[in-house]
């Protein structure tokens, strides 16, 4: 009971229990080289065509992936994508990459209603996301071995955008493709230890479950569709 009242004492208790189980050696952190040496023993096979491997893996995990060589191709695809949705409501990350690709004006041209979130509090943003059909965001890395992309929460990009709309689209530059998370781990390390964002998510396909008789169902809580636009 005492430990519950005094939070610091539980901490002390546990550290002293560890020490009595393992000896004081447990308190000395191994050199980083010790960890590196274990990883150095592993060799990884890298696919020759990262893009093709990545697209295949995204599709295998229930997502869709398209490659665009230029903005025209992208705009044509967007037009085609939007034509089946009746007055689509879209939530768009305020990201430079999307501005450069002129996504905003394209969406407007096709009659999309774009949820404006500047200056709103999180409850209002959640509400807009909940009303949106599509959330469009960005990814800073993609991984060819598994088809996942890394999304990061930022002042430009909310969490709700990737969670609440039925379709989640991410834009990713082809130059940000990596063979696997292993080759990206140094960059991740730097991001996590240097003023990190509050949340990073490796997204590997749409929301899915197989909890009923191992039958795969897409869109259990989050997006039913997950689309990667590779630029």
């Amino acid at each position: 009971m005492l430990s519950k009242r005094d939070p610091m004492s539980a901490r002390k208790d546990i550290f002293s229990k560890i020490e009595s189980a393992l000896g004081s050696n447990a308190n000395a952190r191994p050199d980083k080289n010790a960890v590196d040496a274990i990883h150095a023993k592993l060799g990884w096979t890298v696919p020759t065509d990262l893009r093709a491997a990545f697209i295949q893996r995204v599709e295998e995990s229930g997502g869709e992936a398209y490659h665009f060589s230029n903005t025209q191709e992208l705009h044509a695809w967007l037009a085609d994508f939007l034509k089946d949705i009746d007055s689509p409501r879209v939530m768009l990350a305020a990201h430079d990459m999307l501005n450069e690709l002129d996504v905003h004006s394209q969406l407007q041209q096709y009659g999309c209603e774009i949820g404006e979130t500047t200056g709103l509090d999180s409850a209002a943003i959640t509400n807009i996301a909940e009303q949106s059909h599509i959330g469009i965001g960005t990814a800073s890395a993609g991984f060819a071995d598994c088809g996942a992309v890394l999304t990061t929460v930022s002042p430009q990009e909310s969490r709700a955008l990737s969670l609440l709309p039925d379709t989640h689209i991410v834009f990713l530059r082809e130059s940000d493709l990596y063979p696997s998370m292993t080759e990206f781990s140094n960059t991740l390390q730097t991001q996590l230890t240097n003023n990190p964002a509050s949340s990073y998510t490796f997204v590997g396909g749409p929301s899915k479950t197989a909890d009923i008789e191992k039958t795969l169902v897409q869109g259990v809580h989050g997006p039913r569709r997950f689309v990667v636009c590779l630029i």
Partner: protein
Amino acid sequence: MASELRPSQFKKLVEERIHNPVLRNNLARATSTSLKKRATVVADFDNWEEMRSAAHDIKKLVINHLSAYLDQFVGQAEANGIKVHFANTGGDAASQVLDIIKAHDGKYVVKSKSMATEEIHLNHVLEENGIESLETDLGEYIIQLKDEIPSHITAPALHLSRQEIGKLFQEKLGIEYSENPEELTAVARDILRQKFLDADIGISGVNFGVADSGAICIVENEGNARLSVSLPKVHIAVMGMEKLVPDAQSLALLLKMLARSATGQRITSYTNLITGPRRDGEPDGPEEVHLIILDNGRTDLLKDPELRESLYCIRCGACLNICPVYQTIGGHSYGTHYPGPIGSVITPVFDGLEEGKKLPFASSLCGSCTEICPVKIPLHHMLLHQRKRIVESKLNKRWEKIAFRFWHLFMMNPTRYRIAGKFGRFFSELLSKEDGSINAPGWSKTRYFPAMPKKSFKELYREREHE
């Protein structure tokens, strides 16, 4: 229902379940599907064995220097704005969660799947204190509706058929009967979406803590964990203290292995890394993140060098899927939240040797669990070690000891062995039924006990020589 399950009731629980053809069918389908999917994606690597060794070595480093890594992890997490708490026992951890919820005047909790919160009976404690705590993982939601505990580490409702789930939804949610998984999932989606929007507190477990950055990693497919830790104002995570990895490269390795071993995926739909509460300027996310680091028996595992490696476990559930005993009796028979081989190793420590003394014997010692384990925990050796502890503590039955004395007597001398064999075959023939099995009280109720062959190997061999 959940409270009736105790590891000490093992025999009774098995007897209740083993003759249920629906359960046997559900188990066979689920475990074989999982194993097949796993084999496909493990084949991506020609160095899977080396990866297992590396994962083992990484966890060994962490566990052998646990206080150092824990200290580093906590320092980083606190620097990032996570409020870190420690709990000696499950009860302490549950009270701490309750205190945090009360401090925020919280009423509605959304929870994502977490073995640690199952272990500390969190829902029970919250419920007793008038707080509605809703499981949001579909499998967990189903078993919460049914008032059961998970029967598998990663697939909690694996023991139920679509018909059973359909009937459950019809009864509890008042919907029209359906056994279509898509329709049932859609019903749960609609109900739970509103709950996510209404909840004030989100609770999750933790799959990995990254020591040198203080980030916590939560692995999932449904998006319910991400919703639980994104929409409510407060996020509370409960983590077993052994869950650490040193750095991002180690995380990358273990993620490759966890998804493949657990669900046969290359990666799950959402692998979340949380470093703290919403930063200045970020549009949404919780205002507070609490992390409760749980001992609850883990330092006891640490103390015993023969059991220490059980703390390497990443809770993938592969040892359950491959275990011929689990495949036959299912998770609830073990009477604990951690079923299967890993559960039979740790439960006698978590729940006490007396309570858990039956579980280490629920194994054929075939070693499949050890072979499939992504972090190379020598599970079947540990089961033997637990058996030894039980025998040494004189917790086994007296007649068992006498029987093994006789066994020893007959096995150590060829003449005695031959005579015992003759007697055995004689009585076996007298007692055997038409199907060639024997009724042996206490044994054959849940098992097939084949009668001994009419002739011994030696006799058959001699006959061959004469031919």
